[in-house]
Protein backbone atom coordinates (compact mmCIF):
# COMPACT_ATOMS: atom_id res chain seq x y z
CA UNK A 1 0.00 0.00 0.00
CA UNK A 2 2.67 2.50 1.09
CA UNK A 3 4.83 1.70 -1.92
CA UNK A 4 1.90 2.22 -4.28
CA UNK A 5 1.20 5.61 -2.76
CA UNK A 6 4.85 6.64 -2.97
CA UNK A 7 4.83 5.66 -6.63
CA UNK A 8 1.68 7.69 -7.15
CA UNK A 9 3.22 10.71 -5.44
CA UNK A 10 6.39 10.40 -7.52
CA UNK A 11 4.39 10.19 -10.73
CA UNK A 12 2.42 13.32 -9.85
CA UNK A 13 5.59 15.24 -9.01
CA UNK A 14 7.22 14.10 -12.24
CA UNK A 15 4.30 15.41 -14.27
CA UNK A 16 4.18 18.62 -12.29
CA UNK A 17 7.75 19.52 -13.15
CA UNK A 18 7.10 18.73 -16.81
CA UNK A 19 4.16 21.06 -17.43
CA UNK A 20 4.78 22.49 -20.86
CA UNK A 21 5.74 26.11 -21.19
CA UNK A 22 2.94 28.45 -21.98
CA UNK A 23 3.00 29.56 -25.57
CA UNK A 24 0.59 31.96 -27.18
CA UNK A 25 -1.78 29.85 -29.33
CA UNK A 26 -2.01 31.20 -32.90
CA UNK A 27 -5.82 31.32 -32.79
CA UNK A 28 -5.87 33.71 -29.83
CA UNK A 29 -7.42 37.10 -30.53
CA UNK A 30 -4.40 39.37 -30.18
CA UNK A 31 -4.02 42.81 -31.80
CA UNK A 32 -6.45 42.88 -34.74
CA UNK A 33 -5.46 44.01 -38.20
CA UNK A 34 -7.22 46.73 -40.13
CA UNK A 35 -9.54 45.21 -42.71
CA UNK A 36 -10.00 47.22 -45.90
CA UNK A 37 -12.53 46.43 -48.61
CA UNK A 38 -12.30 47.75 -52.17
CA UNK A 39 -15.58 48.67 -53.84
CA UNK A 40 -16.61 50.10 -57.17
CA UNK A 41 -16.93 53.92 -57.32
CA UNK A 42 -19.64 53.55 -59.93
CA UNK A 43 -21.59 51.15 -57.77
CA UNK A 44 -20.43 51.49 -54.10
CA UNK A 45 -22.22 48.35 -52.89
CA UNK A 46 -20.29 46.09 -55.25
CA UNK A 47 -16.82 44.83 -54.60
CA UNK A 48 -14.19 45.55 -57.21
CA UNK A 49 -10.78 43.94 -57.46
CA UNK A 50 -7.69 46.10 -57.54
CA UNK A 51 -5.45 45.02 -60.39
CA UNK A 52 -2.71 44.77 -59.18
CA UNK A 53 -2.35 45.97 -55.55
CA UNK A 54 0.71 46.38 -53.37
CA UNK A 55 0.68 47.91 -49.90
CA UNK A 56 3.93 49.23 -48.43
CA UNK A 57 4.56 50.79 -45.02
CA UNK A 58 5.52 54.44 -45.39
CA UNK A 59 8.39 54.72 -42.91
CA UNK A 60 12.19 54.39 -42.82
CA UNK A 61 12.33 50.64 -43.30
CA UNK A 62 9.46 50.34 -45.76
CA UNK A 63 8.06 46.85 -45.82
CA UNK A 64 5.79 45.33 -48.40
CA UNK A 65 2.72 43.98 -46.57
CA UNK A 66 0.73 43.14 -49.71
CA UNK A 67 2.73 42.28 -52.77
CA UNK A 68 1.16 42.33 -56.25
CA UNK A 69 -2.19 40.86 -55.43
CA UNK A 70 -5.47 40.96 -57.28
CA UNK A 71 -7.89 41.38 -54.40
CA UNK A 72 -10.92 43.24 -53.08
CA UNK A 73 -10.19 42.82 -49.36
CA UNK A 74 -6.98 43.09 -47.37
CA UNK A 75 -5.94 43.03 -43.71
CA UNK A 76 -2.96 45.16 -42.72
CA UNK A 77 -1.37 45.74 -39.32
CA UNK A 78 -1.40 49.09 -37.57
CA UNK A 79 1.42 50.41 -35.46
CA UNK A 80 1.13 49.45 -31.80
CA UNK A 81 3.47 52.22 -30.66
CA UNK A 82 2.18 55.28 -32.51
CA UNK A 83 -1.22 56.91 -33.09
CA UNK A 84 -0.66 57.17 -36.84
CA UNK A 85 0.23 54.55 -39.42
CA UNK A 86 1.22 55.63 -42.90
CA UNK A 87 0.87 53.36 -45.90
CA UNK A 88 1.52 53.56 -49.61
CA UNK A 89 -1.18 51.94 -51.72
CA UNK A 90 0.27 51.10 -55.10
CA UNK A 91 -1.87 50.08 -58.06
CA UNK A 92 0.10 48.60 -60.93
CA UNK A 93 -1.59 48.27 -64.27
CA UNK A 94 0.45 45.67 -66.03
CA UNK A 95 0.20 45.36 -69.76
CA UNK A 96 2.35 43.34 -72.13
CA UNK A 97 4.49 46.32 -72.94
CA UNK A 98 4.47 48.43 -69.80
CA UNK A 99 3.69 48.68 -66.08
CA UNK A 100 1.98 51.85 -64.91
CA UNK A 101 2.26 52.46 -61.17
CA UNK A 102 -0.03 54.80 -59.30
CA UNK A 103 0.87 55.34 -55.63
CA UNK A 104 -1.59 56.87 -53.16
CA UNK A 105 -0.57 57.83 -49.64
CA UNK A 106 -2.97 56.88 -46.87
CA UNK A 107 -2.68 57.76 -43.19
CA UNK A 108 -4.65 56.00 -40.53
CA UNK A 109 -5.18 58.00 -37.38
CA UNK A 110 -6.60 56.48 -34.21
CA UNK A 111 -6.34 56.20 -30.44
CA UNK A 112 -4.98 53.13 -28.69
CA UNK A 113 -6.00 51.11 -25.70
CA UNK A 114 -3.89 48.34 -24.14
CA UNK A 115 -5.80 45.23 -23.16
CA UNK A 116 -4.61 42.17 -21.28
CA UNK A 117 -4.98 38.93 -23.25
CA UNK A 118 -3.40 35.98 -21.45
CA UNK A 119 -0.18 35.24 -19.59
CA UNK A 120 1.36 33.73 -22.71
CA UNK A 121 0.17 36.38 -25.16
CA UNK A 122 0.71 39.44 -23.01
CA UNK A 123 -1.26 42.48 -24.08
CA UNK A 124 -2.98 43.58 -27.27
CA UNK A 125 -4.01 46.94 -28.71
CA UNK A 126 -7.54 48.04 -29.38
CA UNK A 127 -7.76 50.95 -31.82
CA UNK A 128 -10.65 53.36 -31.62
CA UNK A 129 -11.80 56.65 -33.21
CA UNK A 130 -10.27 55.44 -36.45
CA UNK A 131 -9.93 57.92 -39.29
CA UNK A 132 -8.31 57.59 -42.68
CA UNK A 133 -6.68 60.40 -44.55
CA UNK A 134 -5.76 60.33 -48.24
CA UNK A 135 -3.07 62.66 -49.49
CA UNK A 136 -4.83 64.64 -52.17
CA UNK A 137 -3.16 64.48 -55.59
CA UNK A 138 -6.19 65.76 -57.49
CA UNK A 139 -6.96 63.62 -60.50
CA UNK A 140 -3.84 61.52 -59.88
CA UNK A 141 -5.45 59.57 -57.00
CA UNK A 142 -6.69 56.14 -57.93
CA UNK A 143 -8.53 55.89 -54.60
CA UNK A 144 -11.55 58.16 -54.96
CA UNK A 145 -13.43 57.88 -51.70
CA UNK A 146 -12.90 56.56 -48.18
CA UNK A 147 -15.73 55.27 -46.03
CA UNK A 148 -15.03 54.31 -42.41
CA UNK A 149 -17.62 51.65 -41.62
CA UNK A 150 -16.35 50.62 -38.18
CA UNK A 151 -14.16 53.01 -36.20
CA UNK A 152 -13.06 50.46 -33.57
CA UNK A 153 -10.50 47.88 -34.62
CA UNK A 154 -10.78 44.97 -32.21
CA UNK A 155 -11.58 42.09 -34.55
CA UNK A 156 -11.12 41.14 -38.18
CA UNK A 157 -14.66 39.92 -38.85
CA UNK A 158 -15.58 42.52 -41.45
CA UNK A 159 -14.15 45.61 -43.15
CA UNK A 160 -13.40 48.66 -41.04
CA UNK A 161 -12.77 50.85 -44.07
CA UNK A 162 -14.12 50.69 -47.60
CA UNK A 163 -12.12 52.32 -50.39
CA UNK A 164 -13.93 53.21 -53.58
CA UNK A 165 -11.96 53.19 -56.79
Amino acid at each position, binding site marked *: *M*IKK*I*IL*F*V*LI*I*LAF*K*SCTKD*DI*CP*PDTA*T*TAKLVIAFNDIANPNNTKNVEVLSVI*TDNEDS*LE*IISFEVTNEIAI*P*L*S*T*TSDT*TNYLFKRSIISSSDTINNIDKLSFIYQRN*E*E*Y*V*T*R*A*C*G*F*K*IEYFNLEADLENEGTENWIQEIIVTRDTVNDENSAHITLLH
Partner: protein
Amino acid sequence: MMKIAPILLCCISLFCGTHLMVAQNNNEIATDTVPRIEKFGIRVGVDLAKPLRTLIEDGYSGFELMGDFRVTKKFYAAVELGNEKKDWDEPYISSKTSGSYAKIGFDYNAYENWLGMENAITLGLRYGFSSFKQELLSYRIYTDNPAFPTETIYDPQEFSGLNAHWAEFILGIKTEIVNNLYLSINVQLKRKISETEPENFANLYIPGFNRTYDYSEFGVGYGYSISYLIPIFKKTEVSQEKPE
Protein backbone atom coordinates in the same frame (compact mmCIF):
# COMPACT_ATOMS: atom_id res chain seq x y z
CA MET B 1 17.43 17.75 -8.02
CA MET B 2 15.90 20.00 -5.38
CA LYS B 3 12.64 18.14 -5.66
CA ILE B 4 14.14 14.66 -5.53
CA ALA B 5 16.06 15.16 -2.31
CA PRO B 6 13.09 15.64 0.03
CA ILE B 7 11.21 12.77 -1.63
CA LEU B 8 14.13 10.44 -1.14
CA LEU B 9 14.45 11.48 2.47
CA CYS B 10 10.82 10.81 3.10
CA CYS B 11 10.95 7.46 1.30
CA ILE B 12 13.96 6.40 3.34
CA SER B 13 12.30 7.35 6.56
CA LEU B 14 9.17 5.52 5.49
CA PHE B 15 11.06 2.36 4.64
CA CYS B 16 12.86 2.51 7.97
CA GLY B 17 9.45 2.79 9.52
CA THR B 18 8.10 -0.25 7.76
CA HIS B 19 11.16 -2.36 8.63
CA LEU B 20 10.68 -1.41 12.20
CA MET B 21 7.08 -2.51 11.97
CA VAL B 22 8.02 -5.87 10.53
CA ALA B 23 10.61 -6.45 13.24
CA GLN B 24 8.12 -5.56 15.87
CA ASN B 25 5.58 -7.91 14.45
CA ASN B 26 7.97 -10.84 14.56
CA ASN B 27 8.92 -10.34 18.16
CA GLU B 28 5.54 -9.63 19.50
CA ILE B 29 2.96 -12.18 20.36
CA ALA B 30 -0.39 -10.68 19.64
CA THR B 31 -2.95 -11.27 22.29
CA ASP B 32 -6.17 -9.45 22.98
CA THR B 33 -4.86 -8.24 26.29
CA VAL B 34 -1.99 -6.08 25.04
CA PRO B 35 -2.81 -2.55 26.12
CA ARG B 36 -2.54 0.03 23.40
CA ILE B 37 -1.39 3.44 24.49
CA GLU B 38 -2.66 6.12 22.23
CA LYS B 39 -1.30 9.59 22.48
CA PHE B 40 -2.73 12.55 20.79
CA GLY B 41 -2.87 16.28 21.01
CA ILE B 42 -1.82 19.16 18.87
CA ARG B 43 0.69 18.52 16.14
CA VAL B 44 2.56 21.60 14.92
CA GLY B 45 5.01 21.80 12.09
CA VAL B 46 6.72 23.75 9.35
CA ASP B 47 7.05 23.15 5.66
CA LEU B 48 10.66 22.36 4.73
CA ALA B 49 10.31 22.75 0.98
CA LYS B 50 9.43 26.44 1.07
CA PRO B 51 12.47 27.66 3.08
CA LEU B 52 14.64 25.44 0.88
CA ARG B 53 13.18 27.02 -2.26
CA THR B 54 13.71 30.44 -0.67
CA LEU B 55 17.42 29.64 -0.44
CA ILE B 56 18.00 28.17 -3.86
CA GLU B 57 15.32 29.59 -6.15
CA ASP B 58 15.61 33.12 -7.50
CA GLY B 59 12.50 35.20 -7.12
CA TYR B 60 10.84 33.03 -4.51
CA SER B 61 10.46 33.27 -0.77
CA GLY B 62 7.94 31.64 1.47
CA PHE B 63 7.17 29.72 4.60
CA GLU B 64 4.28 27.71 5.96
CA LEU B 65 3.23 26.67 9.45
CA MET B 66 0.77 23.88 10.05
CA GLY B 67 -1.12 22.27 12.83
CA ASP B 68 -3.55 19.43 13.28
CA PHE B 69 -5.63 17.99 16.07
CA ARG B 70 -7.20 14.55 16.33
CA VAL B 71 -10.95 14.89 16.54
CA THR B 72 -11.94 11.25 16.19
CA LYS B 73 -9.87 8.11 15.72
CA LYS B 74 -9.57 8.72 11.97
CA PHE B 75 -10.29 12.40 11.51
CA TYR B 76 -7.97 15.30 12.18
CA ALA B 77 -8.81 18.97 12.03
CA ALA B 78 -6.02 20.64 10.10
CA VAL B 79 -4.85 24.13 9.36
CA GLU B 80 -1.99 25.66 7.36
CA LEU B 81 -0.86 29.28 7.45
CA GLY B 82 1.71 30.71 5.10
CA ASN B 83 3.22 33.59 3.27
CA GLU B 84 4.73 33.62 -0.21
CA LYS B 85 6.47 36.01 -2.58
CA LYS B 86 6.96 34.98 -6.15
CA ASP B 87 8.28 36.62 -9.31
CA TRP B 88 6.61 35.40 -12.45
CA ASP B 89 8.26 35.96 -15.83
CA GLU B 90 6.75 35.17 -19.18
CA PRO B 91 8.03 36.28 -22.57
CA TYR B 92 5.43 39.03 -22.71
CA ILE B 93 4.77 39.69 -19.03
CA SER B 94 6.73 39.95 -15.85
CA SER B 95 5.03 40.26 -12.49
CA LYS B 96 5.54 39.89 -8.75
CA THR B 97 3.02 38.50 -6.28
CA SER B 98 3.14 38.57 -2.51
CA GLY B 99 0.66 37.72 0.19
CA SER B 100 -0.54 35.41 2.92
CA TYR B 101 -2.86 32.46 2.95
CA ALA B 102 -4.74 30.16 5.27
CA LYS B 103 -6.10 26.69 4.62
CA ILE B 104 -8.47 24.96 6.99
CA GLY B 105 -10.07 21.56 6.73
CA PHE B 106 -9.58 18.00 7.84
CA ASP B 107 -7.46 14.93 7.20
CA TYR B 108 -8.72 11.38 7.14
CA ASN B 109 -6.19 8.72 8.06
CA ALA B 110 -6.67 5.81 5.69
CA TYR B 111 -3.77 3.81 7.09
CA GLU B 112 -4.28 0.98 9.56
CA ASN B 113 -1.31 1.16 11.91
CA TRP B 114 0.48 -1.69 13.58
CA LEU B 115 0.29 -1.69 17.31
CA GLY B 116 1.80 1.46 18.76
CA MET B 117 2.71 2.99 15.41
CA GLU B 118 1.60 6.44 14.49
CA ASN B 119 2.04 6.56 10.72
CA ALA B 120 -0.59 7.90 8.42
CA ILE B 121 -1.70 8.02 4.83
CA THR B 122 -4.02 10.94 4.79
CA LEU B 123 -6.72 12.12 2.45
CA GLY B 124 -7.62 15.68 3.20
CA LEU B 125 -9.89 18.47 2.13
CA ARG B 126 -9.19 22.14 2.67
CA TYR B 127 -10.78 25.46 2.11
CA GLY B 128 -8.10 27.90 1.06
CA PHE B 129 -8.10 31.66 1.27
CA SER B 130 -5.43 34.07 0.16
CA SER B 131 -5.03 37.81 0.46
CA PHE B 132 -2.31 39.26 -1.73
CA LYS B 133 -1.07 42.00 -3.99
CA GLN B 134 0.31 41.79 -7.46
CA GLU B 135 2.67 44.01 -9.36
CA LEU B 136 2.84 44.14 -13.12
CA LEU B 137 6.49 45.04 -13.65
CA SER B 138 6.69 45.05 -17.42
CA TYR B 139 4.74 43.85 -20.42
CA ARG B 140 4.75 43.66 -24.19
CA ILE B 141 2.14 43.96 -26.87
CA TYR B 142 1.94 40.63 -28.64
CA THR B 143 2.74 40.74 -32.32
CA ASP B 144 3.68 38.22 -34.96
CA ASN B 145 4.13 40.93 -37.53
CA PRO B 146 7.61 42.15 -38.50
CA ALA B 147 6.32 45.49 -39.85
CA PHE B 148 5.71 47.02 -36.44
CA PRO B 149 7.92 45.38 -33.83
CA THR B 150 6.93 45.92 -30.21
CA GLU B 151 9.09 46.71 -27.24
CA THR B 152 8.81 45.77 -23.60
CA ILE B 153 7.02 48.51 -21.69
CA TYR B 154 8.32 49.18 -18.20
CA ASP B 155 5.43 50.80 -16.42
CA PRO B 156 5.01 49.15 -13.00
CA GLN B 157 1.45 48.97 -11.75
CA GLU B 158 0.46 47.65 -8.37
CA PHE B 159 -2.80 45.87 -7.70
CA SER B 160 -3.42 45.43 -4.00
CA GLY B 161 -6.30 44.05 -1.95
CA LEU B 162 -6.68 40.99 -4.14
CA ASN B 163 -8.02 37.74 -2.77
CA ALA B 164 -8.82 34.22 -3.87
CA HIS B 165 -10.75 31.25 -2.52
CA TRP B 166 -10.22 27.66 -3.46
CA ALA B 167 -10.96 24.07 -2.50
CA GLU B 168 -8.09 21.67 -2.12
CA PHE B 169 -7.62 17.92 -2.04
CA ILE B 170 -4.49 16.71 -0.27
CA LEU B 171 -2.94 13.28 -0.41
CA GLY B 172 -0.19 12.83 2.14
CA ILE B 173 2.03 10.35 3.93
CA LYS B 174 3.16 10.92 7.50
CA THR B 175 5.69 8.87 9.33
CA GLU B 176 7.00 9.09 12.89
CA ILE B 177 10.78 9.24 12.58
CA VAL B 178 11.57 9.57 16.27
CA ASN B 179 9.26 9.80 19.23
CA ASN B 180 6.57 12.43 18.49
CA LEU B 181 8.46 13.83 15.49
CA TYR B 182 6.86 13.36 12.09
CA LEU B 183 8.01 13.78 8.51
CA SER B 184 5.35 14.13 5.89
CA ILE B 185 5.05 14.64 2.18
CA ASN B 186 1.93 15.61 0.33
CA VAL B 187 0.57 16.54 -3.07
CA GLN B 188 -2.26 18.97 -3.53
CA LEU B 189 -4.89 19.42 -6.20
CA LYS B 190 -6.74 22.71 -6.00
CA ARG B 191 -9.69 24.24 -7.72
CA LYS B 192 -10.35 27.95 -7.68
CA ILE B 193 -13.79 28.97 -6.42
CA SER B 194 -13.49 32.72 -6.81
CA GLU B 195 -10.88 35.44 -7.09
CA THR B 196 -10.72 39.19 -7.45
CA GLU B 197 -8.99 39.91 -10.72
CA PRO B 198 -6.92 43.03 -11.14
CA GLU B 199 -8.29 45.40 -13.74
CA ASN B 200 -6.97 44.64 -17.21
CA PHE B 201 -4.62 41.97 -15.83
CA ALA B 202 -4.89 38.54 -14.20
CA ASN B 203 -3.60 36.72 -11.14
CA LEU B 204 -0.62 34.79 -12.48
CA TYR B 205 0.28 33.44 -9.07
CA ILE B 206 -1.76 33.15 -5.91
CA PRO B 207 0.04 32.55 -2.59
CA GLY B 208 -0.95 29.13 -1.29
CA PHE B 209 -2.62 28.21 -4.55
CA ASN B 210 0.50 28.32 -6.70
CA ARG B 211 0.54 29.37 -10.34
CA THR B 212 -2.71 29.70 -12.23
CA TYR B 213 -3.48 28.58 -15.76
CA ASP B 214 -5.09 30.63 -18.54
CA TYR B 215 -7.77 28.15 -19.44
CA SER B 216 -8.23 26.17 -16.24
CA GLU B 217 -9.41 26.73 -12.69
CA PHE B 218 -7.13 23.99 -11.35
CA GLY B 219 -3.80 24.25 -9.60
CA VAL B 220 -1.28 21.86 -8.09
CA GLY B 221 1.16 21.97 -5.25
CA TYR B 222 3.25 19.90 -2.93
CA GLY B 223 4.54 20.05 0.59
CA TYR B 224 7.27 18.42 2.60
CA SER B 225 7.13 19.10 6.27
CA ILE B 226 8.33 18.21 9.70
CA SER B 227 6.00 18.36 12.65
CA TYR B 228 6.01 17.68 16.35
CA LEU B 229 3.18 16.12 18.31
CA ILE B 230 2.58 17.70 21.68
CA PRO B 231 1.05 14.74 23.48
CA ILE B 232 -1.58 16.31 25.67
CA PHE B 233 -3.77 13.26 25.96
CA LYS B 234 -2.82 9.65 26.52
CA LYS B 235 -5.40 6.95 26.29
CA THR B 236 -4.92 3.29 27.14
CA GLU B 237 -7.21 0.99 25.32
CA VAL B 238 -7.27 -2.76 25.00
CA SER B 239 -6.38 -3.97 21.55
CA GLN B 240 -9.28 -5.24 19.51
CA GLU B 241 -7.11 -7.52 17.44
CA LYS B 242 -7.85 -11.19 17.66
CA PRO B 243 -4.92 -13.62 18.06
CA GLU B 244 -4.37 -15.84 15.06
